């Protein structure tokens, strides 16, 4: 299969700000590609470039084989965009919103009605279809917004942080909706700052930071790129967290991390099982009682930390805008 998106050296400068700084990316057809990165990494700028909302300063971009610089109007026939903020009209019903976008995709009135009904059904909004969107919950609006981007059955869906700001349940519902699209053969490029989301939905993950790709691969590949296994200890008493960290410092390759929320201390470690027994012995020597100790593959979070030297910032984007980021 030919790539659905192929970007080479894609660059976008806003004065001094390099939103994209020579980004190379190939997204294969027939799968979900997730663009993962912190705020300001250039994710939205990239989506906007693919959606032909902005003109890159330099580099080349092909979408479904079409040159986005010379034939943007052809690219628009292939894509469906759902931006960061729901762009459905609150003063119209869900059905009216979908029919409107379907008409704009070029469907006639009857097909638009049918397409809207189908999408409502599929996203679990059939019953709310005739209510004004104003009365919808945040999760329902997002689902409708997703629906609006796919009502014309575009080949490539562009989803910019589709679940930012949603509660966990709405997020799961939206994930299901996205998965069902993919099983239909729609290609999806989504951006997210949630590792779990990328892990759950995407077959390919592209990690971006400062407008560049810093790693790409399947979730498993990325995790093994992270290299070393991680040893993780959960002391029984939270007073022992610091002492546990000291123990890990003696054997670990890097300074250990203390997670106060989960009461766990973790550190990448070379030598795997052998070192595990050392750790257990050292903990025992210092009379630190543990609830749990184990060895595991690194998480994407740790991969990201290893690659960029900073953790992913999982706070929602304060000012989503196609111009910024």
């Amino acid at each position, binding site marked *: 299969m030919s790539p659905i998106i192929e970007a080479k050296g894609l660059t976008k400068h806003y004065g001094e700000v390099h939103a994209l700084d020579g980004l190379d990316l190939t997204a294969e057809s027939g799968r979900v590609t997730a663009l993962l990165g912190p705020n300001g990494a250039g994710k939205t700028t990239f989506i906007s470039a693919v959606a032909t909302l902005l003109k890159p300063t330099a580099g080349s971009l092909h979408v479904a084989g079409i040159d986005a610089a010379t034939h943007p109007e052809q690219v628009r026939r292939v894509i469906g965009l*759902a931006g960061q903020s729901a*762009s459905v009209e609150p003063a119209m019903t869900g059905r009216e919103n979908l029919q409107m976008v379907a008409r704009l*995709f070029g469907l006639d009135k009857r097909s638009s009605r049918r397409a809207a009904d189908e999408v409502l059904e599929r996203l679990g909004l059939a019953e709310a279809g005739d209510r*004004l969107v104003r009365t919808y919950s945040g999760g329902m609006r997002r689902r409708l917004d997703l629906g609006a981007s796919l009502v014309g059955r575009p080949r490539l869906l562009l989803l910019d942080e589709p679940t930012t700001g949603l509660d966990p349940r709405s997020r799961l519902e939206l994930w299901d909706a996205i998965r069902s699209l993919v099983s239909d053969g729609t290609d999806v490029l989504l951006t997210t700052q949630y590792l779990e989301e990328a892990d759950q939905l995407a077959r390919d993950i592209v990690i971006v930071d400062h407008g560049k790709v810093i790693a790409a691969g399947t979730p498993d590949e990325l995790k093994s790129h992270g290299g070393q296994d991680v040893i993780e200890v959960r002391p029984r008493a939270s007073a022992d967290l610091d002492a546990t960290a000291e123990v890990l410092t003696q054997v670990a390759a890097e300074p250990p991390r203390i997670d106060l929320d989960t009461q766990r201390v973790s550190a990448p470690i070379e030598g795997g099982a052998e070192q595990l027994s050392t750790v257990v012995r050292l903990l025992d020597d210092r009379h630190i009682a543990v609830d749990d100790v184990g060895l595991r593959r690194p998480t994407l979070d740790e991969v990201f930390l290893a690659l960029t030297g900073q953790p992913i910032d999982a706070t929602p984007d304060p000012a989503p*805008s196609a111009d910024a980021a």
Partner: protein
Amino acid sequence: MQPENGREMTTTDPIQATGSTSDAAPERSAPIDHSVPGAGFVTTSLTTARRSILQFFRTPQLLMMGTIQGALFLFMFRYVFGGAIRSGGALSYVDFLVPGFLVTVILWSGMGAAAGVAEDSSSGVYDRLRSLPIPRVAVMVGRSLADITLVAWGMLVTGALGFLLGFRTHGRISSVLLGFVLMLIAGYAFTWVFITIGLISGNAQAAQGMSMLVVPFSFISSANVPIKSMPGWMQPFAANQPISVIINAVRSLMQGGTHVVGIGHTTAYWVVLSLVWSAGITLVFSALTTLRFSRSK
């Protein structure tokens, strides 16, 4: 269910079309298996216009605000200031006031239009529309069609209120109708001004702020008082700015000629001048709007 109109596109090899990418691998030219046709100019304009019109009539705050504000101002001018103002010509004050007031509806309803455009611009609505396979200009034409519909609605309400407060026309019925047509033509020209303001302001509050420009145009005009009553340094602007020109034309048409209204020239002079202003404003601001909205940044 899938639109199949993408076929003619697949015959053109996009790689060949670009020419410049010599290193393009042959597999890139895989046929586009489905692409959507996209709506034409008329469908796009009407579909997007409908959205803005529904937005207005289904948002009670918008609907009531405009109506109440208009009624309030009309009431105050008629009864609070009216007694102190000499209308100059042979007209009673209410017959002088209402035609001018109707024209300023163009400005006041434009404030809401600018805010609406700014809102769509910042909320991602325009991002979606710009990503669709539709002529981008048609989205703006749709907006202007919606806005002129709202202007017409505002004039209808204001006209009815004016009638209740004692306003009567004295011109021929054909002239009165021509007056309304002229107001709509001028109103359409001004929708482009407010769309431009909405697009460049960035957000709804800024758009509201920039729209305060309507205050001088509305009040330093022949709408509420005869220009002769203003200080000499103010008169050149007041007499020659487009709103005054349009008001002079509409008032003369509705009330039976320039001599009744107490201004110089003929009715035809003011009508032609109004049309010239309208054409100029439409040309300049629709061009600005198109440039701003259609280009990819």
